């Protein structure tokens, strides 16, 4: 469903991504790992259209994304989270989800009848279900900026999912989480896959990546140095040198 073809991105002299190829099948969870600065976030930014690629192509469901603006890509079915949490701090939790849900389908009519007459419809119920899913059921009227860190992460995941994407890009969703929170996140990601989303998971937390992904691509200095099933990646010598070795040694 997604085909990245010899994709490159230069920032001045820095080659953040070099001739990267990546194919993703529908329904898969693909892990992308690599040391800091290896180009993982840049890959997410390129797929979501935050900035244009220097060279190469991204084909999504048979259509080239390069001409599409970020908002058009969301409409086409690509959603993402950010490595540094991004929410609308001045909107409530509920509003954050509502505007996201709105991009999947025009929900203006229901929005009006809800705001003015407190009449709930299918979208309202859906958002309530999403709050439930995120463990934020009692926080709907809270400002996003008043949430604790872990809650903000959960809201961000729900917000990305609310746009009803077919491809979901998660940029280090477990960063800063404790063990229990990571287990919850694992469960939520699996749930989203069951709902039919294809997922690219960028992560440093190896337990999460190894347990949940179908395949893993390893980046180093912007190039893909390995790709395969989790077990094979764990065994791979060059991966251990480039990446896993680093943290195991100290």
């Amino acid at each position, binding site marked *: 469903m997604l085909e990245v073809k010899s994709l490159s991105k230069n920032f001045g002299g820095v080659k953040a991504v070099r001739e990267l190829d990546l194919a993703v099948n529908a329904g898969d969870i693909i892990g992308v790992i690599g040391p800091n600065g290896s180009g993982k976030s840049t890959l997410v930014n390129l797929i979501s259209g935050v900035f244009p690629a220097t060279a190469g192509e991204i084909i999504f469901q048979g259509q080239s994304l390069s001409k599409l*603006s*970020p908002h058009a890509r969301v409409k086409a079915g690509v959603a993402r989270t950010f490595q540094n949490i991004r*929410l609308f701090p001045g909107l409530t939790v509920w509003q954050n989800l509502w505007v996201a849900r*709105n991009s999947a389908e025009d929900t203006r009519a229901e929005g009006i009848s809800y705001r003015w007459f407190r009449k709930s419809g299918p979208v309202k119920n859906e958002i309530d279900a999403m709050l439930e899913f995120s463990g934020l059921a009692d926080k709907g009227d809270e400002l996003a900026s008043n949430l604790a860190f872990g809650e903000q992460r959960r809201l961000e995941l729900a917000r990305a999912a609310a746009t009803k994407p077919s491809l979901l890009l998660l940029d280090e969703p477990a960063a800063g989480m404790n063990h229990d929170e990571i287990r919850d996140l694992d469960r939520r990601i699996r749930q989203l896959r069951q709902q039919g989303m294809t997922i690219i998971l960028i992560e440093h937390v190896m337990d999460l990546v190894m347990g949940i992904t179908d395949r893993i691509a390893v980046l180093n200095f912007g190039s893909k140095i390995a790709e395969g099933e989790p077990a094979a990646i764990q065994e791979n010598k060059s991966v251990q040198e480039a990446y896993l070795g680093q943290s195991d040694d100290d």
Partner: protein
Amino acid sequence: MPNDYLLTVISNIGMISLIALSAYLLLISGEISFGQQAYFGISAYAGAIATTLWGWPLWLALLFGSSLAALAAGFVGLLTLRISGLYFSIATLAFAEMVRLSLFKLTYQIEIDGELIGPNGAEGFGEIRWIFDNDVSVLEYTLLIYGILLLVLFFLVLIERSRLGMIFRMLGQDPLLTRVQGLNPVRYKVTAAILAGFIAGLGGTLYAHSFTYIEPQIFNMMLGVHALAYGLIGGLGTVLGPLIGVAIDIGFLESVRVIQGYRMVVFGGLVALMLIFMPRGIFDEKRVYWLKSIARRWFRA
């Protein structure tokens, strides 16, 4: 007489509130415009020409002046909103200066009752006699100003409660994230610019007919800077914020005699302090949210 002076201050607060609201609408959408005085000025001239030279009724002149201002704002918006941040601010200022300098060149006079009337370049545009010709008292005109201000406030509250208002605030908080929610920022920023131009325009035509004399110099950068500062003082969390800012400046600083000579110093210092300690004003989003939740609890109890 002191009564009339008080009314003049009050009506002044009302008219300046309109340009403050127009700057506010752009501020909450994340754009700092130094040029709202252009739309205030365009409408002041157009509205005054319509009543004085063409004999139109005031309501039609108001619509005409404000629509012209909205049109200009939309045009400038389309040209500049793709650039953002500092470049946008500078572009708005450049346009406003262009308008002001063009007004110096604008001469369009017609002989009425043996007298040449109409804008006359640097000499300005006097004899905007609609108030006298229609026997409208200062009190009545003040009520008219506040009626229109209330309508605008009502309209802005509606917007703030709507999806459109939410999108304006989203753009102000995080334009990239707004795009990643599938929304086209340019479309909504132009919408905000047009609405803001119209609101500033209402203030302009009202202003011209209240003072009965206008000149290009009134619509200089200081007017635009004040319009911006009012929202930043009063707060960006509610439409009442800019009004509170205007009331503090015109109602308090201008009226208290001891401050008179130092007014600009006090005002400038106030703005600087606010930007340091309350960058989004007294009633910013958080405090407004907090007040609202207290009010809600009160209602339930």
